[in-house]
């Protein structure tokens, strides 16, 4: 039988995660051999099923008012235990450094006095909310949830592309992708020991309860959503349901005498922790945008008085803008006294005259990013830009050098992806999600792998024709042998134990999946706020 992968080869200029110079890499050996046992048409049929089931379930995203499918690919993205352990530690380290940085910025400001980060960089940020000055969250946590975007460079090394410590979204797809894959490809999933992702809502709930105001033994946690028109509404409903807490909108909340209450059918009930999925600027019309209908007047008073905790904290945006990104390796050294475990992408700050000169000589080889831009807005990929664009860019940069950074073009890794019935290499990135409960940063094994579907597409972005892959983090002995082994004890849901298998075979889990799949019959929002990851050919300067 000819397999779908027989003619598969990675692109010559990128790190392919399945095929290396010495043949098939260990992580994918079992995926490939078990997939090869199925007839190509069978796989094609199942790939179509995956695509269509997502469409029928309404797993789509919204581009300018039009709902488009967010296709899940049939080939999983596989990460071995050893590789993952680096990612896990690196992400946790980064989150810890950003936590300390935020605590410092809104507190004593030692990082400025010690000359690690210029004060100007922070106080000129539109996300620096002076109202947070002096507000100390109950257990010190500000980054309850984060999504740290990673790419693999030409050598296969994971590098950090961007931090998201405001309202990272996409974790719902990690969970729905896993369920869909288990039903689409049981022959393959059952042969792997894949670390579970279903514990995420319990982890999140535990972290939210841990940050409750002091003296509250049984805190009331709510999820605050902007409402049905928000692109991530599906995720808000899913998380609220799976945590067993109420989903509320701003109009459901009332602030009275420094306390937050939620309107219920049985009257007003106090709220202690708000998992905030509303942008800072909309959270309290008395302090931010007075025209906001999405928040609740008085929330910041209650927050400052210590009667409610907001997660993630207000004002976190100072820690994840692109200019601060360039300082994070220094922040890790400064606050943690350690070297960064995950390297960043080399970055030049154009405000520095030496950097500027270097960069302006090589505009056509580099990626230029505006510091304040989000969602990939304003990014110029040098090698793909024409003369006119570059000339205009040069003028823009010279006018406001502080507003720009430059990076070499990072060659994103590729993973085989089903395109028109055949396997072709496509570029991917990875967003692992971390939950900080104050004593421990938990990194969900897996994360959201986004894939750029058009051939040679350099931008991994849902609005550019993107899809996703189920991300498998293998337990230490990730592949099951052929011989029947003694069934290991099934672990309790919510406590992922390394090396212990949690598979579809477990009846408890199976039942949960069914239940979740039923709950899944909902309209679904888009994946992740569109954001461009850069990729392509290029040389450092």
């Amino acid at each position, binding site marked *: 039988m000819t397999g779908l992968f027989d003619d598969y080869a990675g692109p010559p200029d990128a790190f392919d995660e399945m095929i290396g110079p010495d043949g098939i890499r260990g992580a994918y050996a079992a995926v490939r051999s078990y997939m090869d046992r199925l007839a190509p048409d069978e796989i094609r049929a199942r790939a179509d099923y995956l695509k269509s089931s997502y469409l029928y379930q309404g797993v789509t995203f919204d581009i300018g008012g039009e709902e488009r499918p967010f296709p899940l690919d049939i080939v999983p993205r596989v990460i071995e235990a050893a590789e993952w352990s680096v990612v896990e530690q690196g992400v946790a380290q980064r989150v810890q450094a950003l936590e300390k940085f935020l605590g410092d910025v809104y507190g004593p400001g030692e990082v*400025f006095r010690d000359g690690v980060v*210029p*004060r*100007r960089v922070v*106080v*000129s940020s539109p996300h620096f909310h*002076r*109202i947070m*000055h*002096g507000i100390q969250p109950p257990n010190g946590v500000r980054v309850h949830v984060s999504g740290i975007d990673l790419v693999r460079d030409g050598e296969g090394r994971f590098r950090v592309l961007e931090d998201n410590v405001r309202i990272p979204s996409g974790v719902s797809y990690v969970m729905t992708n896993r369920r869909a894959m288990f039903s689409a490809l049981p022959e393959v999933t059952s042969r792997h020991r894949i670390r579970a992702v279903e514990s995420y809502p319990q982890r999140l709930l535990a972290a939210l309860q841990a940050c409750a105001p002091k003296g509250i033994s049984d805190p009331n946690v709510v999820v605050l959503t902007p409402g049905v028109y928000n692109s991530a509404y599906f995720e808000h409903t899913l998380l609220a349901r799976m945590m067993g807490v109420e989903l509320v909108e701003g109009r459901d909340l009332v*602030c*009275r*005498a*420094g306390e937050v209450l939620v309107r219920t059918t049985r009257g007003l009930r106090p709220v202690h922790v708000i998992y905030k999925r509303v942008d800072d600027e909309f959270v309290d*019309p*008395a302090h931010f945008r*007075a025209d906001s209908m999405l928040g609740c*007047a*008085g929330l910041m*008073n209650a927050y*400052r*008085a210590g009667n409610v905790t907001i997660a993630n904290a207000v004002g976190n945006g100072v820690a994840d803008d692109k200019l601060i990104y360039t300082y994070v390796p220094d922040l890790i050294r400064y606050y943690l006294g350690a070297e960064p475990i995950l390297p960043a992408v080399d970055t030049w700050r154009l405000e520095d005259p030496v950097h500027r000169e270097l960069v302006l000589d090589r505009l056509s080889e580099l990626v230029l990013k505006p510091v304040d831009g989000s969602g990939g807005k304003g990014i110029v990929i040098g090698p793909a830009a024409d003369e006119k664009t570059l000339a205009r860019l040069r003028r823009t940069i010279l006018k406001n050098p502080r507003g720009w950074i430059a990076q070499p073009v990072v060659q994103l890794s590729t993973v085989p992806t089903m395109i028109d019935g055949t396997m072709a290499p496509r570029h991917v990135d990875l967003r692992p999600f971390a939950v900080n409960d104050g004593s421990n940063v938990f990194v969900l094994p897996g994360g959201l792998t986004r894939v750029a579907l058009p051939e040679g597409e350099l931008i991994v972005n849902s609005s550019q024709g993107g899809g996703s892959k189920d991300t498998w983090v293998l337990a230490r002995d990730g592949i099951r042998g052929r011989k029947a082994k003694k069934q290991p004890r099934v672990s309790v849901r919510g406590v992922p134990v390394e090396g212990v298998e949690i598979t579809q075979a477990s009846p408890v889990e199976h039942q949960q999946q069914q239940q979740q799949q039923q709950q899944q019959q909902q309209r679904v929002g888009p994946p992740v706020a569109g954001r461009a990851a850069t990729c392509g050919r290029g040389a450092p300067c």
Partner: protein
Amino acid sequence: MNRLQIVHTTGYRYSEGAATSFNEVRMTPRTTREQFARFWRVEVSPQAWTHTYTDYWGTQVTAFEVDERHERLKVVATSTVEVDRQAHEGKRVTWEDLRAPQFTEDMVESLVFGGHTDPGPELTSIAKRVAKEAETPAEVVAPVIAAVREHVRYVKGVTRVQTRAFEAWEAGAGVCQDMVHLTVGALRSVGIPAQYVSGYVMPSRDPVVGEAVVGESHSWVQWWDGAWLAYDPANDVVPGNYHVEVGVGRDYSDVPPLKGVYAGGGESDMYVQVEMTQLA
């Protein structure tokens, strides 16, 4: 030394009533080396929940919430403060001092250009011309303030709190706040750190002890010359023992005496009255 009592009465009348209202009050004199707030109190009616804190700029804030339906909101901020301002000499810092990277870094928030304090092209070019010929930054201050006073007449009601500096310049009229915004913006445009000061001033220079007079919510400017030096452009004086500081910031919006939101329809009508009494 001067001991002053300040009674600041303000609030709103709502034409159709307000269901709830959330506000912040910045009316408590700050304590510095030159003034000492002996006593202060903020009373709100109807009955309100209040919470007091010190904000990013070091100003004492009283946040309050009114949860019952009301037609009128009344805030009475009472304070007693001792003022003992010394005449300050600048340190004659040089242009090089002001351009030192570490200095501009530390002072960044007093050097930011734009927003409410954007002085517009005309005043900016005046400031630049003066600065070019000035041996030290301190020499720029008096001509800039003179230009502002000459161009902008003190007229109440022409501008509002949201008016930006250059709009007052174009109108040729404004109140103390506009003159301060213009001065602050002009000084910053040539690299001199400057701040907006919010406070009170007693208009009478020769008050009778124990007799209340009508005072004002007022603003003036501070600029850097090795230390913060103050000037009151609207009254053309150096603030003395009849000026009381409440807070400093980049512009008005960092130290508004009363701001907030209310739930309800119709119009709201604000009223303000400041009474000041020299106690000793």
